[in-house]
């Protein structure tokens, strides 16, 4: 941009520049107030992790107890379980969810009919718009061992009722991960499709003249074109490894599968808000532990991605 480097003829003093831009600060007033109240006040509330919450004392007046809440968490039998479940879901989800959008993008990009490609794209985006509640609702319906689709098929094939997968701990991670792949494969392919659309057609033409088959062109032109995008996305998703969302896991959770489905966020909810005797301090400590790990992972990942190609999230 040639216009961007025009230097300020004489630099005005800071107070003057602030006064001149008062309207801009007026714009920022509400958003900044909002972010201070709804993001930074809760951060101040994190001190509860080092306190013993009492109803009379509240956040600021409760007595300090040091690292006691954290020690309680680290020595609890739940610690290993929730960490293991959290990592299982995120790693499995990454391994299963990563290749499909790439495959879909390569396949769509190979189609020679524009109309077919558009239609296929639209269809694969559809599940993304289904709410988490409805997605889990569909799972429950379809897998219902008495009246679901799985039951119909099982009876038609083998004559017997199928097992109830929703209450089977060893089925939980598979259901969670593959329903996620089903829902977001199309959406996640968008970025790869865009990268493929940016490939210079001359490359394909030249390769064709040299006698490369379509499959060879995919291997040697298309695939390398999306590799940088794929690498960045892979690195960035490593920043989310300890961040398994509450909503879907909680909806899919029941008393029977809880040994496989209890993750950090659902455990925080149970300890802090749902238990018969809620423990704000303990739940805050678990949440803080998770937030700190997430932050470290994201900073590392961001640094790595910046070093790799100058692309960073923030």
């Amino acid at each position, binding site marked *: 941009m040639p216009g961007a480097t025009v230097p300020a003829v004489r630099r005005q003093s800071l107070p003057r520049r602030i006064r001149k831009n008062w309207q801009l600060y007026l714009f920022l007033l509400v958003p900044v107030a909002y972010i201070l109240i709804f993001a930074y006040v809760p951060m101040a509330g994190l001190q509860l992790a080092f306190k013993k919450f009492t109803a009379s004392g509240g956040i600021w007046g409760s007595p300090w107890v040091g690292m006691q809440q954290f020690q309680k968490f680290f020595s609890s039998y739940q610690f290993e379980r929730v960490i293991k479940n959290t990592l299982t879901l995120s790693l499995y989800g990454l391994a299963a969810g990563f290749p499909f959008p790439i495959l879909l993008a390569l396949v769509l990009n190979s189609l020679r009919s524009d109309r077919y490609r558009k239609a296929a794209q639209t269809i694969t985006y559809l599940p993304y718009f289904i709410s988490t509640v409805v997605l889990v609702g569909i799972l429950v319906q379809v897998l219902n061992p008495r009246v679901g689709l799985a039951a*119909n098929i099982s009876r038609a094939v083998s004559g017997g009722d199928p097992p109830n997968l929703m209450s089977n701990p060893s089925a939980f991670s598979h259901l969670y991960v593959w329903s996620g792949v089903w829902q977001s494969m199309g959406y996640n392919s968008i970025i790869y499709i*865009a990268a493929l659309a940016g490939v210079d057609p001359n490359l394909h033409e030249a390769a064709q003249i040299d006698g490369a088959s379509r499959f060879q062109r995919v291997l040697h032109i298309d695939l390398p074109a999306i590799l940088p995008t794929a690498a960045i996305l892979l690195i960035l998703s490593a920043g989310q490894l300890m961040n398994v969302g509450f909503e879907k896991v909680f909806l899919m959770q029941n008393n029977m599968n809880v040994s496989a489905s209890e993750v950090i966020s659902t455990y925080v909810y149970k300890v802090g808000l749902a238990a018969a005797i809620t423990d704000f301090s303990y739940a805050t400590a678990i949440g803080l532990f998770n937030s700190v790990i997430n932050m470290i992972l994201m900073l590392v990942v961001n640094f790595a991605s910046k070093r790799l190609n100058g692309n960073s999230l923030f």
Partner: protein
Amino acid sequence: MADASIAATPAAAPKVKKIRLSRGDRIYYTVIHVILALLLIIVLYPLIFVVSSSFSSPNAVVSGQVFLWPVEPSVEGYRAVFENGDVLTGYGNTIVYTLLGTLINVALTLVAAYPLSRKDLPGRSFFLFLFTFTMIFNGGMIPTYILIKDLHMINTMWAMIVPGALSVYNMMITKTFLQESIPGELFEAAQIDGCSDFRYFFSIVLPLSKAIIAVLVLFYAIGHWNAYFNAFLYLNDRSLFPLQLFLREILIANTIDANAIVDPEVAAAKQGMANLLQYSLIIVSTVPVMCLYPFVQKYFVKGVMIGSIKG
């Protein structure tokens, strides 16, 4: 792999095209079409099954006759959905939360993104840090809950609108868009003509931001329509519940209230009816979003792309 057997089928014989495909390419395209067909079937079949079930009779659903097309077609499920008071309450609430919430979201996002897109704003990097830091660190569930409680928002509609009124991620996307799509020369020219920041924002920035506003409306509105987390944490009063919370009760907790089915004939076939109602409800609750989608597909893809550019 079954490549060879697929390629050997006569179905792969090409129509006469400008360029005749080599044998290798014919195999390739056949494999591509098979893969795509499989993926599309996997994506579509559960959706078709739900739609077909919702249009079948209660008896056909409960006895497991539905596989692909509606069996004994009927709209009884839909009648039951619209006779269900909870569903209507939820629908009404969700529409209010979505409209009001999206309006506030978009306004707040634009008002924050515009000054931050101005490179001449003194203290810009401080404000940017203030916002981006909240993307990598937050207070978490319990301190936020205590805050909402202290603000007396529990069991009010504001609990559905105020927390989450500004998505910093969307704000950064908007800021990037404003920086890249509105030339700086435009501002300089306006400034020389004596145009104030307010006037510049309303008469120049907003009209040039239609694309990003469409993206924001789409993302925020879908978010509101599909949200259940805040309602689940902050609302106990059933008259305030959004649709998704009632959906959770009916679809997942399976606690359908027999009294909610008013028609006595219908009550007789309660079990089948309950199942049918669930299928119909899935459709009724999802159709508004799906209907919106084709009109905004262009912006949707655009939004994803803007989001992937660095901020």
